[in-house]
C-alpha cells in the first residue's frame, strides 16, 4: 500500500503540522513515511503545502506531481492541485472561501466545513485536526490509536494538555465530512 | 676579543637571559623593527606567568606571519584577518587555555575588521596584540587603514589624500567602546621605558584573560623603517613626531574594580 497525499492551503492553517501528525501516525504502524514541504518566503503568510507519503515499501521519490489524495484549503490550492489528483483519486476540500468548486468527474470529492465547525466549537486553532478527522473517515489507512500516538509524538510536551481538544476535533471531523455531488 | 673567564658563568652573576620561549631562530624582521621586541615581551610575560604549557598563540598574515617560528609555544597560523575567529574557536572549546592573537594593522584593521569587532563585542576571553606601524610591511609598503593623512606609501606615492582614500582608522578607540572589551591600551617600544610599559600592559592583558574579564586589547605603535624609507633612528623619531600625536599612548579602558 502506498498513499500519496498533498495538503495545501494558507500558511498558518496548520497544513504542515497536520502532515506531520499523519506521517507520525504512519511511523506508529511501522510504515515508511516522507513529509516534503514547500519552503521559503512563500510560507510567510502565503500559500503552504506539504506532500506526505505513507507506504509499506521504501519510498523512492518524495517529490511528486500527482497524488492519490488532495486536501485543499483555499482557492489558490484548488486551482493548482485539482488537476494533480490521479484519476480515481480523492479530493477533500473546505468550502470556506472557495469560489470555484471542483469540476472533475473522474475523482471522488468530499466537502468538510472544518473552518465553520472549528469556529462553532470555539476552537479555531484545531481547524486542521477537524480536516484530518475528515480525511481519516474517507481514507482509514491509519488506525485511530496510531493517530493519537502520532499526535502525541509530534506535539512538544509543553502542549500535551491540548491533546484532548485535538482528539475531540479529529472525532468531530469524522462525523461532518460529506460526499460532494455537483448539481 | 678578550677571553671570557669560564668561572664568570655562575647563576648569581646572571643579569639577563633570553627567555626560553623565544626560539634560537634568527628573526626575519628588518633592523630596527619593533616586532622582535614585542615578540620577546609577549614571551617573557608568558614565561613569568608560567603559562607556556597552556598557551595557544595565533599568527596572522603580514610581517609577523612567521611569528610561530620565533615564539616557542603552540601556535596556529591564520588566514589574513581571521586570527580573532581562530582564537574564538579555540577559546570556546578550551576555556581554560590562554589564547592570544598577534596581528598587524592591515590584518586587524582592514581585512579582519569584522572578526576583530565581533570577537571584542562578544567579549571573548582572549588577548589581542595589535602592532600598528601605519603600513603594509610584508607586501612592500602599501597604504594601510592606519596610514596617516598625507603619509607616503607605495600606493599613496603623493601622500594619503583622505578625501579619496578615507581616514586613518583608530581601531583601538573603536573597540574600547564595545562592552565586551575589558582592557584596551596603546603602547610603544621605541625606548626602554616604553618597552617596560608595554610588557606591563601585556601582563595585565593576560591577567584579565585569566580572570575571565573579556577581551583584552594591546595596541603597540611601531615603526617600519623599510616601508617608511628611513633609517631606524629616523623612523623612531618620525614615529614620535607623527604617529604618537594621532595615536596617543596610554590606557584607554580599564576594567571596573
Amino acid at each position, binding site marked *: 500500500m502506498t498513499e500519496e497525499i498533498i495538503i495545501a492551503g494558507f500558511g498558518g492553517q496548520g497544513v504542515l503540522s497536520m502532515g506531520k501528525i499523519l506521517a507520525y501516525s504512519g511511523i506508529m504502524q511501522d510504515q515508511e513515511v516522507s513529509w516534503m*514541504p514547500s519552503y521559503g518566503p512563500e510560507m510567510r503568510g502565503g500559500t503552504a503545502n506539504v506532500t506526505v507519503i505513507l507506504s509499506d515499501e521504501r519510498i*523512492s521519490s*518524495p517529490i511528486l506531481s500527482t497524488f492519490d489524495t488532495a486536501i485543499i484549503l483555499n482557492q489558490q490550492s484548488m486551482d493548482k492541485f485539482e488537476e494533480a489528483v490521479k484519476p480515481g483519486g480523492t479530493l477533500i476540500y473546505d468550502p470556506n472561501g472557495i469560489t470555484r468548486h471542483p469540476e472533475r468527474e473522474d475523482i471522488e470529492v468530499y466537502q468538510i466545513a472544518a473552518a465553520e465547525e472549528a469556529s462553532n466549537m470555539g476552537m479555531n486553532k484545531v481547524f486542521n485536526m477537524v480536516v484530518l478527522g475528515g480525511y481519516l473517515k474517507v481514507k482509514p489507512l491509519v488506525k485511530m490509536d496510531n493517530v493519537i500516538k502520532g499526535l502525541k509524538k509530534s506535539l512538544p510536551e509543553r502542549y500535551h494538555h491540548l491533546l484532548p481538544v485535538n482528539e475531540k476535533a479529529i472525532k468531530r471531523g469524522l462525523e461532518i465530512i460529506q460526499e460532494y455531488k455537483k448539481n | 676579543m678578550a677571553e671570557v673567564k669560564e668561572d664568570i658563568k655562575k647563576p648569581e652573576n646572571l643579569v639577563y637571559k633570553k627567555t626560553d620561549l623565544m626560539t634560537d631562530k634568527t628573526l626575519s624582521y628588518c633592523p630596527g623593527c619593533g616586532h622582535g621586541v614585542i615578540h620577546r615581551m609577549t614571551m617573557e610575560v608568558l614565561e613569568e606567568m608560567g603559562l*607556556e604549557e597552556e598557551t595557544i598563540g595565533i599568527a596572522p598574515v603580514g610581517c609577523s606571519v612567521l611569528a610561530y617560528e620565533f615564539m616557542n609555544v603552540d601556535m596556529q597560523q591564520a588566514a589574513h584577518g581571521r586570527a580573532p*575567529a581562530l582564537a574564538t*574557536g579555540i577559546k570556546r572549546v*578550551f576555556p581554560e587555555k590562554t589564547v592570544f592573537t598577534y596581528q598587524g594593522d592591515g590584518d586587524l584593521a582592514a581585512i579582519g575588521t*569584522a572578526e576583530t569587532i565581533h570577537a571584542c563585542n562578544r567579549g571573548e576571553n582572549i588577548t589581542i596584540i595589535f602592532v600598528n606601524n601605519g603600513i603594509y610591511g610584508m607586501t612592500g609598503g602599501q597604504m594601510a587603514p592606519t596610514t596617516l593623512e598625507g603619509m607616503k606609501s607605495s600606493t599613496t606615492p603623493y601622500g594619503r589624500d583622505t578625501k579619496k582614500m578615507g581616514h586613518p582608522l583608530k581601531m583601538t578607540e573603536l573597540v574600547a567602546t564595545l562592552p565586551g572589551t575589558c582592557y584596551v591600551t596603546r603602547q610603544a617600544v621605541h625606548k626602554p621605558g616604553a618597552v617596560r610599559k608595554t610588557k606591563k600592559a601585556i601582563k595585565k592583558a593576560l591577567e584579565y584573560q585569566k580572570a575571565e574579564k573579556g577581551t583584552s586589547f594591546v595596541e603597540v605603535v611601531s615603526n617600519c623603517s623599510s616601508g617608511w624609507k628611513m633609517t631606524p633612528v629616523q623612523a623612531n623619531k618620525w614615529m614620535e613626531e607623527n604617529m604618537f600625536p594621532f595615536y596617543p599612548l596610554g590606557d584607554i579602558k580599564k576594567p571596573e574594580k
Partner: protein
Amino acid sequence: MEKELRLMKGNEAIAEAAIRAGVDAYYGYPITPQSEVMEYLTEQQPEDRTGMVVLQAESEVASINMIYGAAGAGKRAMTSSSSPGISLMQEGLSYMAGAELPCVLLNVVRGGPGLGTIQPSQADYFQSTKGGGHGDYHLITLAPSSVQEMYDFLKISFELAEKYRNPAMILSDGAIGQMMEKVILDEQVPRRTEEEIIKDFPWASTGKKNRERNIITSLELDPAKQEQVNLNIQKKYREIEEKEVRFEKVQCDDAEYLLVAYGTSARLCQETVKLARDKGIKLGLLRPITLYPFPMKEIASMVEKQVKGVVSVEMSAGQMIEDVKLAVNGKVPAEHYGRFGGMIPSPEDILEFMEKQIMGG
C-alpha cells in the same frame, strides 16, 4: 533495547547526530534552507547535554575560521551553510586542507549562481569535489539521499575527516534538508577528553605540555619543501580514492542501461527505474555515496561488462557528467540530463530522455 525512532527534518537529524557523535563545537551563520541546523542545536541546549558549544558567528568567513581554530586544537568542529555561504568558506577550507585539519561541513545546496534561489539544486558538485578554493586539494564528499543518511553520514564524515586529517563535506540539498522522514537514532558518544585528544591527535595545539611545541600552518615558503607538503597530501588522496569509495546499486544485476545520480536525484531515479522496469526496460541506478572519491572503477566495470548507455542525472547544467564520462571513457554513449535553478526533473522525463537520447540513438 528498543530503537529510538523519530520523524525529523534532514537539517534537524544532522544536528541531533552532531550532539550524539560527541561533536565539540558548531560555529555557523544563518542561511536558507539550512537555518534549522543551528535553531535545533540552540533549542536542544547541547552545552547541558554534552558540553558541546554552539556559537552564531558574524559571517561564514568567521565560522569556518573558528572551526580552523577548534580543529587545530584537536576538537570535533563543524558548520553548516548553503551555497553562497559555502563559497565564502572556500578560503578557510583551503587553509584547513593545507594545514591538514579535520572538520565536517554541511552544504544544503540551493540554486545559483549568485544569490540564486532557495529551492534545491545540485550545482555545487564541482565546488565540493574538485577543491573549491585555491591549491591542489579535495574535500571528502558524501551525498546523503535520505534523512537517515543525513544523520548517519555526520559520524562517518568525522571518522573519515579525522582518519585522513582533511575536511569532509556532506553535500545535501534543500529537499533533503527540509523534508521529514523516519530516523533511527543511536546512542550518545562521549566527547573526547583532553587526554584522548593528546593521544589521538599528537599534532594538535593544546599547549606544549611535556613535548615540543606544535605548529598548525599551511605556510611553507621554500618551494622544495612546499612540493613535499603537496606530495604528502596527494598521497592521502590516492589512499582515499583506493579505500573509501562508497556507492549503492539499485537493480543493476541485469541492467543494460544505467542511471547515475546522487542525493535527491537518486530518489527520483529510483522511481524512473520502477517505471522503466514496468515497461520491460532493463534499467539500473548507480548512486554514488561518496562523490569524492567518485566510484570511477565501478562505473567503468559495469560499462565493460553489461551496460550499453549511461545517463547522469543531476539538478545542475551538467557537472557530475564529467566524472561519469571519464569512467565511461567513450565506450558507450553517456549524457547528462537535468533541470536546474531550483527546478526538479520528473521521473517520467528522465525515462523519456533515456529512451530517446540513449536507447533510440
